[in-house]
């Protein structure tokens, strides 16, 4: 008997959220099928790939990264080069230097860095904070104000600062805002409810459901994303239909496979290659679990993952 395909197409859909302005703006989300199931129905927008740079420049860059960015003397140069990386749909500026526990850069410095990057690229911009919720709230408010009209995504509003971030980024300056929870499905939904109650339109929200490097508790990420997609598509839960944007770089590049040097572990081979592989497998796993966009650091990972997506669409 011939195989009869029974497409599993849902009546519900993931929201479509636009990032950036002009010709190079990108739409994230919009799927009506399980992650990557393009054989069930066309996926409105393929998963997107962002390339991450930081306000601290090329400090700690691997050899390959340093080569890719060679000749870049300013943050603007770095941003421009990143935006040209094959496969990159958007640029993510991570404000690592703002961390009060590290360089503790001022809000003004960070606003200047964001403006510099935004002015240098023609692709959409994502701003990632420094993980200090108080500082992030201050940073996001000022940067959202300075970059009005650029349709920038801010990662992320958390339980502790969602009111400030939602009200400034999402409402006052009409930018896009991500709600972050760490593998907690109930909190993920609750944050979306609270931001919706604040008045942030659902088309302006994305979710960062948390991430982990492959092999480091990734099953929690996978089951979280599974349940969220099941609610969004199978149960038509409008409070979980926001697209999922997952920053992968910081997780993938901080596990032992990526940080132990070749001198210490010669049998593991080239350190940079290991980091790239961790980044690629983690990103691929996130996409298979339900991420509508991933953010990676190494240009080789960006190119690989974007080719992977293109091959599946």
């Amino acid at each position: 008997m011939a195989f009869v395909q029974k497409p599993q197409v849902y009546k519900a859909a993931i929201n479509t959220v636009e990032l950036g302005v002009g010709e190079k703006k990108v739409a994230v989300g919009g799927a009506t099928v399980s992650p990557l199931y393009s054989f069930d129905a066309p996926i409105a927008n393929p998963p997107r790939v962002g390339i991450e740079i930081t306000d601290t420049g090329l400090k700690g860059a691997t050899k390959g990264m340093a080569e890719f960015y060679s000749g870049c003397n300013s943050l603007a140069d770095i941003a421009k080069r990143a935006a040209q990386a094959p496969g990159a749909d958007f640029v993510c500026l991570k404000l690592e230097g703002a961390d009060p526990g590290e360089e503790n850069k001022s809000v003004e410095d960070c606003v200047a860095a964001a403006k510099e990057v935004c002015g240098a690229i023609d692709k959409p911009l994502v701003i990632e904070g420094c993980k200090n919720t108080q500082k992030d709230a201050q940073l996001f408010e000022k940067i959202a104000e300075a970059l009005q009209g650029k349709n920038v995504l801010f990662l992320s509003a958390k339980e502790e600062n969602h009111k400030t971030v939602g009200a400034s980024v999402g409402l006052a300056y009409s930018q896009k805002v991500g709600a972050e929870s760490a593998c907690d499905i109930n909190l993920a939904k609750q944050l979306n409810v609270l931001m919706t109650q604040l008045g942030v339109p659902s088309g302006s929200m994305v979710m960062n459901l948390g991430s982990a490097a492959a092999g480091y508790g990734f099953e929690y990420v996978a089951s979280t994303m599974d349940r969220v997609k099941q609610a969004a598509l199978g149960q038509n839960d409008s409070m979980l239909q926001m697209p999922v944007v997952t920053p992968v770089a910081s997780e993938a590049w901080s596990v032992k496979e990526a940080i132990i040097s070749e001198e210490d572990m010669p049998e593991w081979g080239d350190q940079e290659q290991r980091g790239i592989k961790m980044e690629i497998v983690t990103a691929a796993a996130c996409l298979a679990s339900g991420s509508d966009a991933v953010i990676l650091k190494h240009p080789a990972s960006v190119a690989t993952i974007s080719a992977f997506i293109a091959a599946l669409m």
Partner: protein
Amino acid sequence: MAKFITVGERIHCISPAIREAMANRNPEPILQRAKEQIDAGATYLDVNIGPAESTGVELMKWAVTLIQSHFDNVPLCLDTSNKAAIEAGISVYNRSKGKPIVNSADAGDRIENIDLAAANDAICFALCSKAGVPADNDERMVYCQEMLERGMMHGMDPADLWFDPLFLVIKGMQDKQMDVLECIKMLSDMGLNTTGGLSNVSNGMPKKIRPIMDSAMVAMAMQCGLTSAIVNPCDLRLMETIKSCDIIKNNDLYADSYLEL
């Protein structure tokens, strides 16, 4: 599993205000009741125009258009014994938020309403009765089979027949309540959708008791697999119970604000 579906019962010609509004085509009282029920969380709204033998066709068209145009095509349940009126209502019905429901068929005189629903790609409430209240669940299941076969003969998806076991008034039929619940369980085990006029159970009880009794009944019925009910959505206790049961059944993902959704 999908979330429990509530059908708001408050647009009913038995209410003097609604009867007057329907007779004089006065939109306000109808729109007000529609809004109250939607705000309270009703999924579908029942539109009961009574038998309306002479004016039903025009009245149903008017009511469907009126309510859907004001409330983003809220899905409706067309409730009358006048078949021509139901067809007329469906002819102007917008399906973007859900199929229309024909309320209702039974295994007796009203079995042709299943044919009507099938011909119009509508959902149909199917009362497990023929003439009067069924004596027991054997009888209920026979009627269920008859209606199921009828619908499938006409190409209906069994999921579009929502079987009503007939909720019975507790005051007077207290000994029959567990039968009704058992029937829901049997229908549910067959994979069928179910519904019913829930507030029947508390008929004749003091006003302050009714929400308590209705809530207890809906919780027990949902445990047995009930998938929808015709209810008064303005009964806060009942709606909170339904939302809580949906959480316990994992029909809806929990969030601290789930009662506000």
